[in-house]
């Protein structure tokens, strides 16, 4: 780019324009849209605009950098002066007037003017100025000249801009006229211009002339000065306009900046919300308007009334809808005074061509309401809108605003990630507990939300929370397994949780395990065995050479050992016998079980032993000495297993041991034994656990007080044994279920991988 030398004025002006166009606040690139609007506002033909764009290199770059922008502005000035567009003329032309931009879009002054002009007229107040702006912008030029002289006599202190009177141009034109003061040295005018704008605000005078008349009407000087000295909001806001409006008046431009340099810089850099500040007069006007709809300033304007009111502004419904969304802060379908002011302000801004913001500017946030007393005392502007923090002093004038004000902004900010208008601090996290907490918090914090989901949710959540908590307590890993009917991606979760629960409980209470865990009874198509000798047994036996199985198989059914301890002891014996038969992996368990056995073996067997001394020990395989003590019953067991003939003795011993014990129990210990064997086989790693469990289960069968009597003891023992068997079975089932889950998991993972590998066919 060729180097561009700008005068100070130009520099200032261009930088302001650039900042104005820099809607993205990048400080480097002016948004194309804005720039093009600006260029169009220069009232140049499209070809010229294109040419300028090309010359400045923006088309090359694709965007308007600062230098491109400056060059473009200069070229615009050239074009407007009627000079041919030459790059070299950029630096050569010295007294180039500043480019002028006509359209009202980028002029906040215009906005103010329009506001004032419009607000006075109930009916067509809003459409008027823009209409005029559009229609008469051409004439503005002509108007300018004659108007200029009228503009001259505008000292700061006098009633502002009386001149407008004679000029037919409407307020906007008068505006423009002011800005376009061809004559120089209207420094004073500049600051007063904004002042000019304000007074009309109060007047309700329809008609263009009256619009001007408004200006001349009043506005006490002090007000004017106050504007000038105002937080420079109006001047700063209008600053971008000043340069465009200013004629090739370097003085005017210079004065303007000089008048508010610091503020201007502040304003321009402080952000976009400054233009949204409501000045006192504006606010006062808004309040008056509010009163016409709703006498009570602390009350609400219902949505329908507000709709009618704002529909008069002839803005498209979509924009009005957007304005409503922005301004109805508490989403209650009604406008408080503050909301109304914000909405009004937005409407006015929009009428002036200002684009609506995506979110409500801070200065328009309803927290300002408390600053305006119901008496309508205007607050000094600096206080207005400065409160960036939502916790700004907000005396609770408006009914529901304050708490909402404080909650909403916070929550809104904290919920940016969720981006919910409604302050729901819920994050979409997988943590269900966390979400529940958040949900509860949200429901607690926002009680005014109209939707019922909010209220109804807490109970559900609390239940879930309790459930989850309850579930967590037992120490299961999957807390959500039971709390909801969640469709888990893998079914194993709830099942595994069930299993976990089983696991956790099984050690503690076998009975509890039976109650909690609903294991589907494993199929036991057992032809040869009376009961469940299961499948597992078949499998086990299938795994084992048939030979050794035979005796085992044969032996089991007939093994109707006396229930109580003999069965207990028989178990290890059975194990050992089976071992002896060549079945594997039992030794580990048997010794474990053995220690338990002797406990009651000592006690009960002792008695039995004392009672009955069948000499069936012959066949017993090698037993530990302890076992030998329980020789006969166990021996009977063993013999039964090994010998069919022993059955009789078993039966006899059984009968001798217990009278009324049905034969049903006998298979149970067998079954149990089988079970333990089965358990041993499939999962070696689970076996120790199971065996320990079984051992504990067995151990839990305390020595039955012999005083009860053998019958009762036998019955109780049988009951206990049955329970044990049940638990063992259940445990086995849980183990198998676990295995099933694992397999399912694997399968699902494989499926997922397959899905991922499949080239997005379904997308």
């Amino acid at each position, binding site marked *: 780019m060729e180097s561009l030398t700008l005068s100070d004025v130009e520099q200032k002006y261009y930088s302001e324009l650039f900042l104005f166009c820099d809607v993205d606040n990048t400080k480097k690139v002016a948004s194309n849209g804005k720039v093009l609007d600006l260029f169009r506002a220069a009232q140049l033909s499209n070809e010229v605009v294109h040419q300028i764009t090309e010359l400045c290199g923006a088309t090359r770059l694709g965007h308007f950098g600062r230098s491109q922008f400056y060059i473009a502005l200069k070229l615009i000035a050239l074009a407007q002066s009627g000079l041919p567009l030459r790059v070299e003329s950029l630096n050569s032309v010295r007294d180039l007037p500043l480019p002028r931009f006509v359209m009202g879009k980028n002029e906040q002054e215009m906005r103010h003017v329009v506001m004032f002009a419009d607000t006075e007229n109930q009916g067509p107040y809003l459409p008027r100025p823009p209409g005029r702006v559009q229609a008469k912008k051409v004439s503005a030029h002509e108007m300018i000249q004659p108007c200029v002289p009228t503009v001259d006599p505008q000292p700061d202190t006098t009633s502002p801009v009386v001149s407008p009177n004679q000029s037919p141009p409407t307020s906007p034109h008068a505006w423009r006229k002011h800005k376009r003061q061809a004559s120089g040295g209207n420094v004073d005018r500049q600051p007063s211009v904004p002042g000019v704008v304000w007074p009309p605000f109060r007047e309700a005078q329809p008609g263009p002339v009256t619009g001007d008349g408004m200006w001349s009407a009043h506005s006490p000087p002090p007000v004017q000065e106050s504007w000038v000295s105002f937080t420079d909001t109006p001047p700063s806001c209008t600053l971008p306009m000043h340069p465009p409006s200013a004629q090739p008046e370097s003085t005017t431009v210079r004065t303007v900046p000089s008048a508010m340099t610091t503020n201007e810089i502040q304003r321009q850099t402080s952000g976009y919300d400054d233009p949204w500040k409501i000045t006192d007069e504006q606010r006062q006007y808004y309040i008056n308007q509010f009163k016409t709809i709703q006498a009570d300033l602390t009350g609400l304007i219902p*949505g*329908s009334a*507000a*709709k009618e009111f*704002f*529909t008069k502004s002839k803005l498209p*419904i*979509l924009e*009005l*809808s*957007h304005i*409503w*969304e922005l301004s*109805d802060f508490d*989403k*209650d*379908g009604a406008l408080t005074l503050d909301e109304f002011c914000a909405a009004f302000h937005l409407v006015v801004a929009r009428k002036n061509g200002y684009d609506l913001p*995506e979110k409500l500017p801070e200065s328009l946030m309803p927290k300002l309401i408390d600053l305006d007393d119901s008496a309508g005392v205007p607050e000094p502007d600096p206080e207005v809108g400065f409160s960036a923090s939502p916790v700004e002093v907000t005396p609770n004038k408006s009914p529901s605003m304050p708490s909402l004000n404080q909650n909403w902004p916070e929550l809104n900010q904290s919920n940016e*990630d*969720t*981006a*919910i*208008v*409604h302050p*729901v601090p*819920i994050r*979409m996290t*997988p943590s*269900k507990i966390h*979400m529940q907490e958040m*949900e509860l918090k949200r429901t607690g914090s926002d009680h005014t*939300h*109209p*939707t*019922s*989901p*909010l*209220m*109804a*949710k807490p109970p*559900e959540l609390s239940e879930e929370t309790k459930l989850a908590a309850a579930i967590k307590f037992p120490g299961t890993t999957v807390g959500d397994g039971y709390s*909801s*009917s*969640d*469709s*888990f*991606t893998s079914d194993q979760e709830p099942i595994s949780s069930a299993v976990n629960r089983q696991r956790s409980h099984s050690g503690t209470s076998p009975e509890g395990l039976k109650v909690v865990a609903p294991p589907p009874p494993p199929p036991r198509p057992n032809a040869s065995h009376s009961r469940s000798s299961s499948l597992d047994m078949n499998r086990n036996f299938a795994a084992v050479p048939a030979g050794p199985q035979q005796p085992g198989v044969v032996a089991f059914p007939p093994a109707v050992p006396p229930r109580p301890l003999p069965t207990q002891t028989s178990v290890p014996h059975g194990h050992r016998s089976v071992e002896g038969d060549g079945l594997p992996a039992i030794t580990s368990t048997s010794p474990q079980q053995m220690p338990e056995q002797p406990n009651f073996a000592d006690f009960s067997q002792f008695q039995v032993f004392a009672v009955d001394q069948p000499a069936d020990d012959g066949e017993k395989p090698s037993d530990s000495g302890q076992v030998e003590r329980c020789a006969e019953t166990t021996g009977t067991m063993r013999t039964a297993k090994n010998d069919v003939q022993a059955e009789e003795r078993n039966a006899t011993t059984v009968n001798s041991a217990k009278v009324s014990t049905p034969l049903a129990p006998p298979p149970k210990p067998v079954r149990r034994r089988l079970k333990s064997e089965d358990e041993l086989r499939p999962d070696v790693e689970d076996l120790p656990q199971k065996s320990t469990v079984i051992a504990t289960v067995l151990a839990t069968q305390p020595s039955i007080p012999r005083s009860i009597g053998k019958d009762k003891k036998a019955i109780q023992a049988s009951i206990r044994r049955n329970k044990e068997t049940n638990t063992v079975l259940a445990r086995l089932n849980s183990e198998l279920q676990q295995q099933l889950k694992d397999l399912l998991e694997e399968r699902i993972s494989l499926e*997922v991988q397959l*899905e*991922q590998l499949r080239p997005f066919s*379904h*997308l």
Partner: protein
Amino acid sequence: FLICVAIRANYPLYIRSVPTQGELKFHYTVHTSLDVVEEKISGVGKALADQRELYLGLLYPTEDYKVYGYVTNSKVKFVIVVDSSNTSLRDNEIRSMFRKLHNSFTDVMCNPFYNPGDPIQSKAFDSIVSTMMVQAC
């Protein structure tokens, strides 16, 4: 891949999908899911005052995607279609999405300038839905 739809009286007020391509298929899916929604809400004899019942849950899973339904008290239906491969979305998250949708929809309804039955053009609603869908995907 996520599609959120707000339907009133069997025509959509708002359809938004994250992957903008292949939308037509999702339109069809949503339409067919309306039948399921109708069936579910007509089957419930008791009053639908309970919030919990507003959430219809997984309407039906197909081989490619899952459809979730939610109906408000005014018979405005929300449908969310998610890709089946998106296994990270749990039922709770879907519920919360529906809650957000409902809240935003209520906000839109509160706007006096919004005529019920108009397509929803609210930017706030759009932004909420966009954020939600970006989060979910």
